[in-house]
């Protein structure tokens, strides 16, 4: 293990993985409890449209530099606020619009990549992710974003839990539900745009869901679910990175598959424990 960590790119990957696990473990339980996983998938794919446009603009010789991630940020935030306002108006068409944003976002991205002369390696890394190429500066940006998310969740924790478990009841308790929901959606959007440049769109969805699924098998206390999501996220990433390095597998895919296998193991062990308990005390 020491040998692996002597490389700077591996150190960066390690830091990025830990930060990604913290932010996803913190936001993931709220997303799963609010049944927003599909929204997260939609938002992360919508980002691809913004990435494509910004990439194309960046090659137009403008006076200022446009980094692809700027486009992704604008697209994801706009999509998040649009979906939030639809839900507030009770139009019950969120599923429909998420699907449309998902597909149109990717299509816009592909069209603008096509319009841009030359090969666009950066965009491919956004889609599939390559945690092994994360520069130190991006790790620093991630750290700042993680700090913002941690502080915001710490302040509004009780409100976020209340709206995630029963939104109607939260309204009856006169909580500022629209504000809390918008805050949570913006945090989700922020998490997604920060992470897609380091771990890829697919790994973002995996890190938002698999650790929560493992944690919910182990606890039914919301705080513990958050803590366990962070811990299992870190375990999945480190193990996945080690496997990727050892057998020369793509890093993102190794991490996701490790998570999937761990989830199956945890579920299997829990099932066995339940079976043993019922057999002993029928």
């Amino acid at each position, binding site marked *: 293990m020491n040998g692996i960590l002597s490389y700077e790119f591996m150190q960066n990957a390690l830091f990025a993985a830990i930060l990604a696990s913290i932010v996803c473990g913190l936001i993931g339980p709220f997303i799963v409890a609010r049944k927003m996983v599909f929204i997260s998938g939609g938002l992360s794919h919508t980002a691809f449209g913004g990435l494509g446009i910004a990439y194309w603009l960046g090659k137009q010789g403008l006076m200022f530099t446009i980094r692809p991630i700027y486009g992704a940020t604008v697209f994801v935030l706009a999509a998040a606020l649009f979906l939030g306002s639809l839900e507030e108006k009770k139009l019950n068409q969120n599923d429909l619009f998420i699907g449309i944003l998902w597909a149109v976002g990717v299509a816009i991205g592909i069209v603008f990549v096509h319009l841009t002369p030359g090969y666009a390696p950066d965009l491919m890394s956004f889609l599939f992710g390559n945690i092994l190429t994360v520069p130190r500066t991006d790790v620093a940006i991630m750290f700042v974003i993680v700090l913002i998310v941690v502080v915001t969740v710490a302040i509004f924790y009780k409100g976020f839990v*209340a709206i*995630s478990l029963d939104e*109607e009841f939260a309204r*009856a*308790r006169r909580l500022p539900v629209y504000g809390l929901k918008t805050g949570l959606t913006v945090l989700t959007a922020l998490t997604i745009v920060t992470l897609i440049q380091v771990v890829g769109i697919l790994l973002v969805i995996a890190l938002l869901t698999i650790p929560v699924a493992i944690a919910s098998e182990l606890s039914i206390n*919301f705080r513990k679910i958050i803590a366990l999501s962070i811990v299992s996220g870190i375990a999945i990433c480190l193990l996945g990175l080690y496997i990727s390095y050892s057998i020369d597998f793509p890093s993102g895919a190794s991490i996701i598959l490790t998570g999937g296998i761990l989830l199956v193991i945890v579920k299997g062990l829990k099932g066995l424990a339940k079976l043993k308990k019922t057999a002993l005390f029928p």
Partner: protein
Amino acid sequence: MGSIIQVESVTYGYGKRPVLEDVSLTMLERDFILIIGPNGGGKSTLLKLILGIITPWSGKISFRGDTKNRLGYVPQSAGFNRSFPISVLDMVRTGCIHGDNYLKQSSRESTEKSRAILQKLSLADKLDENITDLSGGELQRVLIARALVADPVALFLDEPTTALDIASQTDLIDILNELQQKMSIVVVTHDPTPYTHIYRHLACLNTSLYFHERGELNETTLEKVYGCPVELLGHGIPHTLLPSHQEVKKP
């Protein structure tokens, strides 16, 4: 007994269709109002308007003192989302927070209050159970505990007996009977039978509201509310519509 909630000429609807038109209602201290009426008549909507979950198109809802901030709500347990695994204690604790205190509510205080209310409702042994593993009756009591933990002056229950067996219904009525000594209660229901002995006022709602003192009902009023003939049974509470009643053939 003074009034604690006053609903004045409230109108509300979905899309362009009004569900409630010019509805007025007075709720007294330690009142027990039963709201009955056909599907789509606006029963749950009226509850949500009083609770502030939705805002009326027109009209006014006024509250005495801090009553507005001390309303307890028990939603329909049948439609309650139980997909996320969470402990009974965590669920009840969410009842402690309010728009005014959610940023500063002490976790220790809310835990202690939640434990105490669960103990009162004979749910002390369910504290660490997953809400997904509870029976319908247990979930109903947990939702009542969540509503009671903030010490409300009025409790609103939406179809509380729908998913319950007879034993759980009896338990619920006992709980409501005891609570009635301390607070006002509003129950929205399709079937008023279990509440025959404890309600004080009856509100028949079908877009318009017909408010009655206990025992003031007659078949003409009910026909107006339900839009079809309704048979009044011995205890004076309507719960059988004639058309469906006639379909049951005697052996």
